[in-house]
């Protein structure tokens, strides 16, 4: 008697599987149009210059300047081309100190306005580069409102998507019932017509009108105990299914996107500035927790950038009062489930987005995966083990190769066993 544990756990995921697929498909379907339109908007207006400009801007300027009129360390660049001509701008970017020293009035004015903080000179940038930067800035200024609108649309779409599966199920169900009722009606009509035709001459006898006969036959149906019990059974089973489905959903927080104490945007940091996840989530390669960054990590940049923003002031207050920021936890696993980030990210080479979704496009962080056991198991069944350059797996790879033609999956090395996650 050798009952492998996986047989036991099969119950769980299979129940969930179909629902999951629907949810995923639906999310995909609903989010695709918006994603595409946003990209289109960016692509249309631009051209090569804009794309080049974006790269140069992000590599050199983004630390201190916003493309809006927002003041970061230096002034926002929106409308910079209207304030000064291109020649002035080129000169300024290449060597601002020289311009201030030469007494250029606008340069001196800016210098004084920004508390005599000197802008780094970029003599390395070519004229084309600088032109491209401002092409990008101007383009972004016009594209930004459109994008914001698209973003809002996507955000509005998301909740609908998350609550989708059960709604869709209900819609399909209702539609089915309506269609069936229609078919029933049509059939009844046909039956009536046919019976009339069969009756033919004996019209006088069967001259009761259609509605009465329909009523009679309906009465007959209602009175029939077999049909009655069948209806009750169907109803009871449907109710049971709804309850069971509901019970599986208890504690599943998919789509949970609570308001956070600080309006931190992953879209801006991870998406636009492409700051590596690791930079803030320092534990992700080391241990169980990825770590919510402590305030001192924020200060690495915000010690100089956007100090006066009210949201960033909250971090300053936190540090001054020695009171930690109480973020609202989004991804929560039950206490009896063990999960280790380093196993997945460092060893397994799994991308953050695989479980957390498109973090780079989330203004407010949202739980994208269901984080149920079925979801874990499904992935462990299909994922290949990242054995490359890892001596730990040498034995296993060798053994597996001698036994099977297929790739080494997580489930093949005990990834479905209870004590991998529960102890």
């Amino acid at each position, binding site marked *: 008697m*050798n009952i492998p544990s996986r047989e*036991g756990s099969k119950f769980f995921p299979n129940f969930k599987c179909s629902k999951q697929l629907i949810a995923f498909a639906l999310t995909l379907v609903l989010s695709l149009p918006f994603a595409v339109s946003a990209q289109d908007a960016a692509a249309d207006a631009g051209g090569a210059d804009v794309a080049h400009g974006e790269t140069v801007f992000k590599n050199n300027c983004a630390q201190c300047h916003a493309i809006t009129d927002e003041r970061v360390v230096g002034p926002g660049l929106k409308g910079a081309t209207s304030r000064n001509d291109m020649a002035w701008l080129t000169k300024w970017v290449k060597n601002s100190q020289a311009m201030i020293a030469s007494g250029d009035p606008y340069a001196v004015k800016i210098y004084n306005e920004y508390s005599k903080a000197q802008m780094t000179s970029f003599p390395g940038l070519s004229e084309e580069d600088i032109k491209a930067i401002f092409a990008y800035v101007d383009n972004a200024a016009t594209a930004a409102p459109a994008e914001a609108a698209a973003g809002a649309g996507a955000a509005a779409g998301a909740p609908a998507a998350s609550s989708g599966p059960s709604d869709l199920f209900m819609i399909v169900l209702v539609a089915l019932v309506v269609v069936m009722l229609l078919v029933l009606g049509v059939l009844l009509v046909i039956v009536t017509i046919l019976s009339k035709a069969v009756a033919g001459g004996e019209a006088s006898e069967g001259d009761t009108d259609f509605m009465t006969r329909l009523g009679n036959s309906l009465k007959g149906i209602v009175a029939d105990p077999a049909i009655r019990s069948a209806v009750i059974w169907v109803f009871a089973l449907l109710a049971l299914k709804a309850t069971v489905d509901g019970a599986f959903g208890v504690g599943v927080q998919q789509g949970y996107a609570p308001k956070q104490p600080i309006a931190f945007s992953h879209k801006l940091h991870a998406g636009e500035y492409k700051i590596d996840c690791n930079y803030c989530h320092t534990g992700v390669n080391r241990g169980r927790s990825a770590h919510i960054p402590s305030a001192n990590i924020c200060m690495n940049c915000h010690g100089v950038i956007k100090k006066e923003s009210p949201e960033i002031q909250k971090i300053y207050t936190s540090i001054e009062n020695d009171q930690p920021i109480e973020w609202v936890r989004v991804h929560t696993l039950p206490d009896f489930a063990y999960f280790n980030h380093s196993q997945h990210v460092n060893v397994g080479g799994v991308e953050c987005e695989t479980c957390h979704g498109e973090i780079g496009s989330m203004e407010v962080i949202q739980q994208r995966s269901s984080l149920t056991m079925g979801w874990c198991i499904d992935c462990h069944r299909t994922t290949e083990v990242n054995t490359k350059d890892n001596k730990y797996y040498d034995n296993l790879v060798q053994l597996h190769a001698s036994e099977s033609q297929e790739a080494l999956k997580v489930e093949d090395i005990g990834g479905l066993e209870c004590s991998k996650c529960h*102890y």
Partner: protein
Amino acid sequence: MKNTDKRYWRGLEELRNDEKFVKNAGSEFADAPSDTQYESLVDGTGSNRRDFLKVLGFGMAAVSLAACETPVKKAIPYVNKPVGEFPTLANWYASSYTEGGDYASILVKTREGRPIKIEPNDLGKGFSGIGARVHASLLGLYDNEKLRGPKKGDDTKVSWEAVDKDIMAQLGQVAAKGGAIRILSNTVLSPSTKAVIADFTSKYPTTQHVTYDANSVSALIQANESSFGKAVVPSYDFSKVQTVVSIGADFQGSWISPEIFAGQFAETRRVSSTKDGKKDMSRHYQFETTLSLTGSNADYRTAVKPSQIGLVVASLYNQVAAKLGGKAIPSAKVDVAHLDKAANDLIAAKANALVVCGVNDPAVQVIVNALNSLLGSYGTTINLEAPAYTRQGNDVAMNQLVDEIKGGKVDALFVLGANPVYDHPRGAELAAALPKVGLSVAFNDRPDETASLLKFICPAPHYLESWNDAMPKAGFYSLTQPTISLVFNTRQAQVSLLKWAGLNDDYHEYIKSYWRKNVYTQGGKGDYESFWVKSLHDGVFMTPAANATASATFAGDIDAAAASVGKQYKASASGLELALYQNVGIGTGASANNPWLQELPEPVTKACWDNFAMISQHTASELGFEQGDVVKVDLNGKAIELPVMVQPGQANGTVAVAIGFGREKAGKSADGVGKNAYPLASFAGGFLSFAPGEVTVTKTGDFREVAQTQTHNTVMNRKSVLQETVLGQFQKDPLAGRFIPEIHTSDGVVDATDLSLWNGHQYKNHSWGMVVDLNTCYGCGSCVIGCQSENNIPVVGRQEIINSREMHWMRIDRYYSSDADVEDLRGLEIASENPEVTFQPMMCQHCNNAPCETVCPVLATTHSSEGLNQMTYNRCVGTRYCANNCPYKVRRFNWFKYFDNDNFDYNFNNDLGKMVINPEVTVRSRGVIEKCSMCVQRIQEGKLTAKRERRQVKDGDINVACASACPTNAITFGDMNDAESRISKLLSEEREGRAFHMLEEINVRPQVSYLTKVRNKDTKVKVEATKEHA
């Protein structure tokens, strides 16, 4: 059956066929007590249907309510993350455990800034064996009943500034009039603390430091002064011993440094089954009154009365002296078994012989010194050059201090953590006199029996919150560093003393500069800063002085000693004598408010949460006592009432009581547990004596059941559970004593393990297993606490132990074996007066053909691909089928919710106590089964570390809590698939030798193997032959 010539019994209950024993023997779980003190709802066994429906209804409502809204959980990061601190990753710090004179070099595992586990520090060579008390000291840190801050009179709101001002003003007055200032402490191991006291003394020259120990060896120090001119406790090296004779010294259980001695001694007990493997062992004789842990491990043990013990030493001396040409001493002949044999073996071992004695009588110790000197043990097994400092108490000085305080001659008293009102025989006198002392300050962590009588309490933090150093042995230096910031508003005693002496009160800097002046100069390498950092990292620093050895010449007055012994001891006495002894877990009772220690079954009696009057069966029958009868033990008017424990091996005509119990002001877990036996101790010639003389013992008519665990978990048919042999037979045949079950089939006889209905498992990568050497396991219980600490095992309390519901995953079974032949059925029914004892650690055997797995209806217990029998709590529905089907009885059921439950008011019932919880292990809730997981969390962690480092798991990367806790390395854990691992090598050596599986005939194929116990006894045939000659 082949090879089985012994019958074992677990306790007298079994031989008596007690009603309760018989009832429980057949069932896995004891019934609920009829007069249950918990209402049926809380009690898992109540069958109140209405309650059940109510709970069900509420549960449904609660679930639906809970489903409506997500509970908002917070994720709170650091404001400023400390460098090197990563949430969810453990940090380890080397430190030192010191309590009284006890010392251990330890590593402290911390998570998110709180210590959660104590492990031995391998760099602390010679002091890395740690016992149950050291493991449990962790829980002492999170004791909720300590003082939150300084206390003046009844005022606990007072500030440190106010206290300082008051004390300094009063100290000034005392100093001005030249009044006597006394500092009272137990053994102080810290040289820096001694320097602080010296600094304090130079500021207030009328200061004297008095040291005493509740378990004093003052007489040994005194004897060494008179014999060798050195007032020290020598360091002993049991690893060089060929013959050891211990007379009343429980050197593996409670005498001086038991874990250290046990670790050394185990090296002489290790044997190997390979052809040219080690096949010789040391031999151990024990002469003692109570069956101690050490005595139960002895090859030859003789029960003697306390009044005989001095004569046993003298007779042994005379026998050895007669053969080695020493000077004979006049001594009455004492008729005890094995004395001649012991003398012969001592002579044969010569320099590798060792005689130790636990009697606190200088005359006896002088004779022991003479005996060891005669044998030439000094320089090999005993070393006076690098003495131990672990006991420095001076009984005479302490007695003087009590007189001084009584006479009102002490003007200021500072108590450095000691608790003499409780643990000194003259505690009552002290209690009456202490309020008379003008300025009295305690540094104790709580208002205990002593501190509560003093005017000020300036609580000192736990050692895990403190800076300190220690010198347990000459040349062996060790550091204690804080592993958590102060839990309460406490302050180290050293800081207080420095402050009151008007000095810089930074004790950390003080130690640093002390080490610069005194330790670094003894061979520190590199610049001082790097020396300091390295010492802190290693935890220890050894100077060449630690290894110094020299022989010594005995220059004592043996005639005077013999005369004194002749006067004090009698060869035969008829009265009922009292013997006090120290319990292995509780010790002196200083850390009694520790539920882990209270619930640790005492190794031999397997009793917990109580002390009792131990009497032999013979004496009990004579007096008409039965187990559990409450009796009054009366020593000249000083009396305590205790339940009777009938104990095999106890000397007839004696009654033994453990010290360390009966605390009154220690806290919830200790107060009222047992009775305080210290007042019954006496002084003989100024030295503390645990053999105070004759007592009268009378029945009170009450009954109190003692909570004992041994007979709780039935293991049927012990023939194949325990396998043992004697050395002579083992030398001839490594398979001696093995039970190899056979089955007769139509094809002839086959091994029981050759037939199977099972398909078996394949372990491709790892196959985790354990080997337990019954020869080196001596039953101390360190692993039990190590496991409890690692795996968040709850404390259940006395009543639940009586109900057979202890939760320990690891238990140590103690078996007595009958003297009678296996055919002598009548003889087997009589309890042996002096049985042989075997200890067997018992945990989940992780069977390959696991009976538990097949019966679980919900697949909550399954098999892993690495040989583990997995237990999934969240799946368990509590049918308990698995536990019923487990042949080893190692599964535990959570009858209650043991956390946040006022019925179990231990560490899981308060926020501070819960800080000790290991975050890697689930805290189990009511209604699920749990059992040894082979520390799967450590296995997973070790594997993950290897994966992250892109390498294979190395042997030694992973160790289970019990194996790392074992002071004698009796447990070997490892990957049996790795040919290079210690466990594989050990098994390949022992597979055709001592290695056996428990209950091999049922063919469950455990991953845990045991190695036969080998006693260094003469084979039985030989014994009979000598009888015939005689």
